[in-house]
């Protein structure tokens, strides 16, 4: 039943053989040595400082949504860096391999990458940036912020949350190891039939691609289920649907898209796997297969996916603009409606990625109109943000600069998207670098929103602000890089440069390619500025400490608890009285009201099961890629056994007693006092009647200290 693979195969190691390690490759071999040395140094340092126990207890086995979120973000940033290096390599190859006179090294006729290697670099770049950089970064933020914004103590399923992270990490490990063991796919990030069929891609690259995608799809789906359940079920009392912060609404709409669309990707890839492993003919050219059916299935997921990543970014912008304009968000209801309109329409437009298939004028017109409809809710959002800033008291913090930058990019990306949505134009520029420039504008909206959010929410998570000067330096360098790379790219698209060229024949394009390369150099500077930013901020962390409301103008519930957020989030579940609860409390003078009494709380225990299962899914992916059947079976059985054992045991959780809670809260308040210079007072003044600050506790008059009481 299994297909015969070309090259060697043996039952013990599958297709693995020593010649699969590219030790003769002049780029990979030194990199491999560097990675090994770096890895040894890192592990050595952890051992030397005896941090293994700390790492294991506090991070690797945690189920705390904030720590998992931080790890998601670190993972995303690392992959953003890797993807950036890929981008740098692509740009350098094109500027070098330009025209018949251009030189070639390392076995390439032109430039320094052979077509085979160039194909792998751009395929990895796209896959990494969308699914292993942007997605983990956004999921990380949703993980941290959503439970805080809805006033929950954790996600609905803390253990599932850890599982999602570690499965995503397994996907990352799989694509990273493809650098050093075997090679990666060269079929682009989305794949084409029939080039990914075994006949045309006999190596393991496509298999790496399949299983990496399957694992991220799985991890993201699990995360999506968790976020939806959290938003639906875990809202604090008083947090009615129309008091939900917009970021939470955006997360809800995005995760509904994820939950409904990722299965399409998983099925499409399983069918590709069937073709490659069992010799079926779903996407072959003969035997009843249908090439375009793959493209159809892929974009059935692919287009909703791009909205899955942009909607949380819109949500982030919707939080940053009001905070730094000192005004409530303009058009809250329309913002919610627009998010869901975008989510809904995103299901109706996927054919715009293959207008050129030639389904005829009726079909193309339908999808063209549907695509352009997306512009309406998106336009609503843009105007809402503009009106939020209009006549606001704007402070141009670095976070605000990133958000404004995102707004401009959205305009550029949206308008070029509209052009692409017209079939007559699309036939001219499809698969040109104009499309590349379009979606990079869009994906940069996400990157800008993410960096804005890093600055905006960093003090909430870590208790101190990042350095404004270096953050702004980074912003301006990054923006200069963006303009220098993508404006010439739009132009080249119009001039007819197609995408994915390992050799650019037209020497008239040289000045544009050089400009793009300069842009990449400027991007490198902004990456350096980012590292300086981290260094300077951590060095000055004591000076930059903040209290609960880090910016003084924040609006939603996450700013109500201490910074850094204690592991139990809220000592007592807050009672929500208004949309923009913190702004409402500040307005009524009770933003520092503390609970009058504490009660015991129930928390989930740490567990190592999630990281074990993550590691096993990596082994499974690796074994499938190399066709080591016994290892596939072993890891699969181990995963199932672990799941059953864990479900059987369950998690009784543990209790933080009211007394312990009180002690921790006092310490947190003392820290806050050191930062802000006064003790938070209990209760407030001018409180509207019927208001409730904490669950079951009326806002009390000034001066009653919180006490644990004797009711548990």
């Amino acid at each position, binding site marked *: 039943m299994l297909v015969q693979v070309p090259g060697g195969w043996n039952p013990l190691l599958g297709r693995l053989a020593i010649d699969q390690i590219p030790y003769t490759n002049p780029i990979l071999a030194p990199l491999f040595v560097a990675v090994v040395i770096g890895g040894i140094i890192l592990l050595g340092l952890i051992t030397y400082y005896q941090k293994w126990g700390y790492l294991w207890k506090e991070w690797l086995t945690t189920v705390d949504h904030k720590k998992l979120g931080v790890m998601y973000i670190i993972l995303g940033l690392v992959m953003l860096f890797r993807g950036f290096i890929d981008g740098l390599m692509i740009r350098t190859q094109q500027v070098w391999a330009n025209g018949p006179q251009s030189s070639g090294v390392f076995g390439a006729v032109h430039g320094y990458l052979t077509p085979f290697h160039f194909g792998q670099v751009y395929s990895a770049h796209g896959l990494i940036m969308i699914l292993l950089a942007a997605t983990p970064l956004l999921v990380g933020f949703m993980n941290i912020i959503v439970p805080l914004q809805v006033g929950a*103590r954790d996600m609905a399923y803390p253990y599932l949350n850890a599982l999602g992270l570690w499965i995503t990490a397994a996907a990352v490990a799989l694509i990273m190891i493809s650098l050093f063991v075997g090679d990666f796919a060269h079929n682009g990030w989305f794949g084409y039939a029939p080039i990914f069929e075994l006949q045309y891609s006999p190596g393991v690259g496509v298999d790496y691609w399949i299983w990496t995608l399957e694992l991220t799809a799985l991890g993201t789906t699990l995360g999506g289920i968790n976020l939806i359940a959290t938003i*639906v079920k875990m809202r604090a009392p008083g947090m009615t649907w129309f008091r939900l912060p917009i970021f939470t609404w955006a997360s809800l709409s995005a995760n*509904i898209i994820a939950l*409904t669309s990722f299965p*399409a990707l998983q099925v499409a890839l399983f069918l590709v796997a069937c073709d490659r492993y069992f010799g079926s003919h779903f996407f072959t050219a003969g035997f009843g297969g*249908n090439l*375009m*059916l793959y493209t*159809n299935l892929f974009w*059935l997921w692919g287009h909703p996916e791009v909205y899955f990543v942009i909607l949380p970014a819109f949500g982030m912008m919707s939080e940053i603009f009001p905070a730094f304009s000192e005004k409530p968000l303009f058009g809250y209801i329309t913002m919610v409606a627009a998010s869901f309109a975008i989510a809904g329409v995103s*299901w*109706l437009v996927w*054919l715009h990625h293959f207008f050129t*298939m*030639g*389904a*005829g004028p*009726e*079909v193309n017109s339908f999808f063209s109109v549907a695509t352009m409809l997306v512009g309406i809710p998106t336009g609503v959002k843009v105007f809402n943000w503009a009106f939020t800033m209009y006549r606001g008291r704007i402070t141009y913090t670095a976070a605000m600069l990133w958000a404004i930058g995102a707004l401009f990019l959205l305009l550029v990306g949206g308008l070029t998207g509209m052009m692409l949505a017209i079939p007559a134009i699309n036939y001219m520029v499809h698969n040109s670098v104009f499309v590349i420039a379009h979606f990079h504008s869009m994906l940069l909206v996400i990157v800008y929103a993410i960096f804005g959010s890093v600055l905006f929410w960093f003090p909430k998570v870590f208790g101190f602000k990042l350095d404004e000067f270096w953050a702004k330096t980074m912003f301006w360098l990054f923006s200069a890089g963006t303009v220098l790379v993508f404006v010439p790219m739009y132009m080249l698209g119009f001039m007819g440069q197609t995408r994915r060229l390992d050799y650019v024949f037209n020497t008239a394009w040289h000045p544009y390619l050089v400009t793009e390369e300069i842009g990449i150099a400027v991007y490198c500077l902004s990456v350096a500025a980012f590292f300086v930013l981290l260094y300077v901020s951590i060095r000055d962390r004591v000076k930059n400490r903040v209290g609960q409301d880090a910016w003084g103008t924040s609006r939603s519930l996450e700013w109500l608890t201490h910074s850094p957020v204690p592991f139990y989030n809220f000592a007592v579940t807050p009672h929500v009285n208004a949309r923009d609860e913190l702004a409402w409390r500040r307005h009524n003078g009770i933003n520092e009201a503390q609970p009058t009494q504490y*009660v*015991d*709380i*129930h928390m989930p225990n740490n567990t190592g099961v999630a990281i074990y299962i993550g590691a096993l899914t990596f082994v499974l992916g690796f074994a499938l890629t190399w066709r080591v059947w016994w290892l596939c079976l072993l890891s699969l059985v181990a995963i199932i056994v672990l799941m059953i054992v864990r479900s059987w045991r369950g998690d009784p*959780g543990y209790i933080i007693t009211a007394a312990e809670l009180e002690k921790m809260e006092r310490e947190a308040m003392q820290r806050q006092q050191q930062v802000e210079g006064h003790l938070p007072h209990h209760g407030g003044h001018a409180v509207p009647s019927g208001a409730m600050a904490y669950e079951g506790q009326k806002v009390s008059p000034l001066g009653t200290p919180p006490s644990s009481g004797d009711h548990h």
Partner: protein
Amino acid sequence: MSHGHDNPILHPEVQMSSTRGYFTGFLISLVLMAAATAMVSSHAFPPFGLLMVITICAAIAIIAQIYFLLHIDVSEHNIWNTVSLVLFIPLFILTIGLTWWMFSQLYLRTMPMMPGMH
């Protein structure tokens, strides 16, 4: 904390699961899948007829799985299941329907007619 930490086994949606239900669902799917495979590999009907028959098999399998494995019905305690079902049906119709439409239009222009179709 008092909410939601009572015995999860007692939740109504968990109570709905039964070993018999799971096995019935599993068996029905298995039989349908085997039947479809057998019909296709033995060329039991002309191609277009086969397509219709295995589509019907798939539809029955889906319904059986929704009912026996996912326990989706329209009762009160399953309200969120109903919501997701309502959300899912239009998506299902849209994606399958539009795919059908675009490929039929494509085939009109590019393909010979499938044997057994008229």
